[in-house]
């Protein structure tokens, strides 16, 4: 059977059971536009149908959580009337098809999630995963994605303050592009998406609607799908940061003046999703007039207009007496606006085109009645073999040779090739810029600071999804703690393969268990997240790649927070936290030197983590340098301090194995003080100074030569 012969619902990716559920719900067969709406709203992407049963394990009932998962962004209370909004989102598939526009529109989308809540977006982060850079196509993807994020983020005027990047073969045919955004507002600016008030007007703001991103709907819209027609129906969305910038300013002004009852951004499934969500969330209905929508091209069908994913659009719900003011503000900011709907007492969303009713469905059903699947899961058989063998680590390691190879790795070498393409100083908030651990922002006019770190570790998560996922939570917590900020709230992006594969589903269940457990140990609420399934190409699933974005908060912020470049000649080097215990599974050493991936990564003890994080936060107020030990172990952590500060060092009595071991919960502290005031285990291992990276008996390296390798690791591959 060819695709043309399949029934419509199957062509739109709906199962027969799901189709029957729609018929049951409506009591009749759906109209064309209705079927299009259900097919998109009930898709995995919009409905979380395979993941929802597992997401309940995340806690968000801490008293500082103002808005938890479910709205466009999570919101936490920073005291004195200040609120922070945060959100993470993936744009994996679009970025593979067209890296520049895919990544750019990902930035645009996440920013709308933030200013939909009433907050001004103030910073972005970009966790990225690609295949190895020896393949030119992967270089093309990295280059395009970075230029897309830069092109959009810089132009829209939101600084990108960091991110992370991993390279592994499983991402070659399926790169991961996640974006996290942070917004700031005063409490009275908070707006939610639930519409209320019969007779209130839905105003569509921003870009004209075109045939962007119409997938399923366009197939339906044309009775006969002929070759050549695809010209008219591009799936690629093109971002317009200029329009978004105007939209941000216009919306913030609307909130300032108290002119909107509710607002919702337009994302997947465009108008049909935004109208049904605002109405459904408020327990209302809505009548929508498709002919009122301002469109970019003539001849669009009602289905196309409803489903279009044109970027840079918002739907505001406004009382009738405020409509004129809203339109005036839109005009002043030079954006288009049209009144497309009226709130009814529901419960139906009714859509009219040319006076004809083209859809009439219970508004809440599109979101609330979506199917939920408790998909079968099963521990993968590959694990036994992996756990039965350990990375081969010699007793004597040639430190200089090994470190040279590690520093040349593009995920370890200097990543400023990426971060210097992003404006990261706009808004005069950036206290710690990319290139350290967490980035740190101040809140002007207060003593408050916010730190953010995004972290993922797909290799360890592959080896043990539960431990791997838990470890990224602890790592991100340490990354913000070294700036002086307390781990405060988290968003997660769960990038996985095909959930219909029980082994992938098992990875998902284990990883979410690990995340939930670690967050509870740290008393960090999960205020939002995103699930990206079906990251699979030609039957190969990606490595499971949960990614977290940790928000840290401090009040007051340290006057002089620790920075890698504050290391000076003569300062003592201390190792704080756990002793190395031969944790090489998923390590840079095993990956780069052995070329293998095996064993089982160590678990983390919650109490130990809590204690270390608390002492690190405290130390950040007087220790000039704090840097956690992560990829590449102690050797890489020390080398990074030397490169950024321009000062060499000498450490003694540290074996080669200890230098490359990746046991978690360890931090390097550097200070002039004769001792560190802390209750956690600490050991002085050396002294800063000179122009060598000195490892005592294990050897030494010339600082500037090593630095050149590190600095060129990424640029030399991208030239």
């Amino acid at each position, binding site marked *: 059977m060819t695709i043309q012969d399949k029934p419509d619902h199957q062509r739109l990716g709906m199962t027969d059971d799901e189709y029957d559920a729609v018929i049951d719900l409506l009591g009749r067969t759906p109209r064309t536009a209705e079927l299009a709406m259900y097919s998109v709203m009930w898709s995995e992407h919009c409905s979380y149908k395979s993941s929802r049963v597992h997401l309940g394990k995340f806690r968000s009932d801490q008293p500082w959580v103002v808005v938890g998962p479910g709205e466009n962004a999570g919101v936490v209370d920073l005291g004195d009337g200040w609120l922070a909004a945060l959100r993470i989102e993936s744009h994996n598939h679009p970025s593979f098809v067209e890296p520049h526009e895919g990544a750019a529109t990902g930035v645009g989308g996440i920013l709308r999630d933030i200013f939909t809540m009433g907050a001004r977006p103030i910073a972005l982060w970009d966790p990225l995963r690609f295949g190895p850079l020896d393949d030119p196509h992967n270089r093309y993807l990295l280059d395009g994605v970075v230029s897309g994020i*830069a092109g959009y983020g810089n132009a829209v005027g939101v600084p990108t303050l960091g991110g992370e990047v991993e390279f592994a073969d499983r991402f070659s045919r399926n790169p991961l592009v996640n974006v996290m955004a942070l917004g700031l507002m005063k409490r009275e600016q908070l707006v939610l998406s639930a519409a209320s008030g019969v007779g209130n007007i839905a105003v569509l703001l921003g870009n004209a609607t075109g045939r962007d991103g119409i997938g399923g709907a366009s197939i339906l819209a044309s009775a006969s799908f002929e070759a050549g027609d695809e010209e008219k129906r591009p799936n690629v969305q093109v971002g317009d940061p200029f329009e978004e910038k105007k939209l941000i300013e216009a919306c913030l002004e609307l909130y300032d003046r108290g002119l909107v009852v509710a607002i919702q951004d337009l994302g997947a499934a465009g108008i049909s999703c935004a109208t049904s969500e605002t109405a459904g969330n408020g327990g209302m209905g809505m009548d929508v007039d498709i002919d009122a929508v301002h469109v970019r091209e003539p001849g669009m069908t009602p289905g196309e207009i409803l489903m279009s994913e044109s970027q840079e659009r918002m739907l505001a719900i406004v009382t009738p007496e405020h409509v004129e003011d809203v339109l005036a503000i839109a005009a002043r900011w030079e954006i288009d606006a049209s009144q497309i709907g009226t709130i009814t007492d529901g419960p139906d969303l009714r859509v009219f085109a040319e006076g004809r009713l083209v859809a009439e469905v219970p508004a809440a059903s599109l979101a609330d009645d979506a199917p939920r699947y408790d998909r079968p899961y099963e521990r993968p058989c590959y694990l036994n073999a992996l756990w039965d063998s350990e990375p081969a680590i010699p007793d004597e390691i040639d430190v200089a040779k090994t470190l040279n190879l590690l520093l040349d790795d593009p995920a370890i070498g200097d990543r*400023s090739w990426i971060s210097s*393409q*992003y404006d990261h100083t706009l808004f*005069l908030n950036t206290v710690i810029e990319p290139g350290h651990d967490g980035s740190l922002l101040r809140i002007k006019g207060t003593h408050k600071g916010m730190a953010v770190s995004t972290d993922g570790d797909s290799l360890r998560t592959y080896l043990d999804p539960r431990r791997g996922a838990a470890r990224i939570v602890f790592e991100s917590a340490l990354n913000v703690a070294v700036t002086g900020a307390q781990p405060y709230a988290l968003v997660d992006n769960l990038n996985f393969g095909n959930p219909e594969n029980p082994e992938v589903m098992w990875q998902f269940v284990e990883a979410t268990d690990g995340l939930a457990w670690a967050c509870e140990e740290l008393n960090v609420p999960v205020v939002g997240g995103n699930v990206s399934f079906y990251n699979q190409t030609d039957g190969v699933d990606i490595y499971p790649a949960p990614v977290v974005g940790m928000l840290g908060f401090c009040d007051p912020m340290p006057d002089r927070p620790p920075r890698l470049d504050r290391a000076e000649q003569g300062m003592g080097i201390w190792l704080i936290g756990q002793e190395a215990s031969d944790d090489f599974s998923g390590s840079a050493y095993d990956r780069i030197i052995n070329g293998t991936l095996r064993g089982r990564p160590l678990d983390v003890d919650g109490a130990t983590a809590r204690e270390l994080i608390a002492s690190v936060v405290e130390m950040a107020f007087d220790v000039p340098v704090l840097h956690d030990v992560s990829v590449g172990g102690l050797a890489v952590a020390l080398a990074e301090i030397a490169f950024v500060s321009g000062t060499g060092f000498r450490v003694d009595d540290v074996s080669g194995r200890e230098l490359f071991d990746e046991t978690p919960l360890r931090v390097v502290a550097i200070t002039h003080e004769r001792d560190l005031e802390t209750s956690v285990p600490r050991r002085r291992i050396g002294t800063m100074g000179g122009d060598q990276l000195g490892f005592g008996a294990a050897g030494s390296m010339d600082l500037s030569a090593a630095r050149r390798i590190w600095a060129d690791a990424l640029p030399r591959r991208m030239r």
Partner: protein
Amino acid sequence: MTIAVVVFPGTNCEHDARYALALLGSHAELVWHRDDDLSGATGVVLPGGFAHGDYLRTGAIARFSPVMAEVERLARQGTPTLGICNGFQILCEAGLLPGALVANRDLRFICRTVTVRVESTDSILTSHTSVGDLLQIPLNSYEGNYVLPAAIDGAPSPNVVLRYCDSSGASGKQMNPNGSTDSIAAVADANGTIVGVMPHPERAVEDILGSTDGRVLLESFVSATASVVA
């Protein structure tokens, strides 16, 4: 009115500029690009950003905004006029400064702190500095590459205010971040009252942000505006 900070659609450094000026004790007001009356302004700042999305050519559309006729009138009568980054691009497009700004040599956006050397103190941006001073200022641009065709032919050589250099003060291809002609980072008109600067002095005004070297530049500007009788 005091100092006017002009906001085009797409401008994004207007609040930063106003904040930095306020730190120096000066008052600035934001002015929308459709306003066409700047009477009373003692100085004008065209801040950074992407006016009109940088579409067509950076600065090309902005120069026709209604406010620009007023900016031009004030600039020509000697009111201190400072274009930062995108503002520099707009001043060039408007013909208030010579030359043009094109894409960086490596075709990548550059965000990093650069060192610049003061070449002339005869400008509203550098009157409080000394020739040879080295300053650390954040650079943030895609089109920061200043071109000055020798072919605008017979034009007097420009009044160079700042040049990119290394930490020892030396200029040259290696230390030139973006391919700018003669490593030019800032230029002025012949009187020194209209200045375009590519790096952002307003981003270097507090220790906590990494550098305070932008202060002396903005102080020069503020003191020039103080002597204007509006």
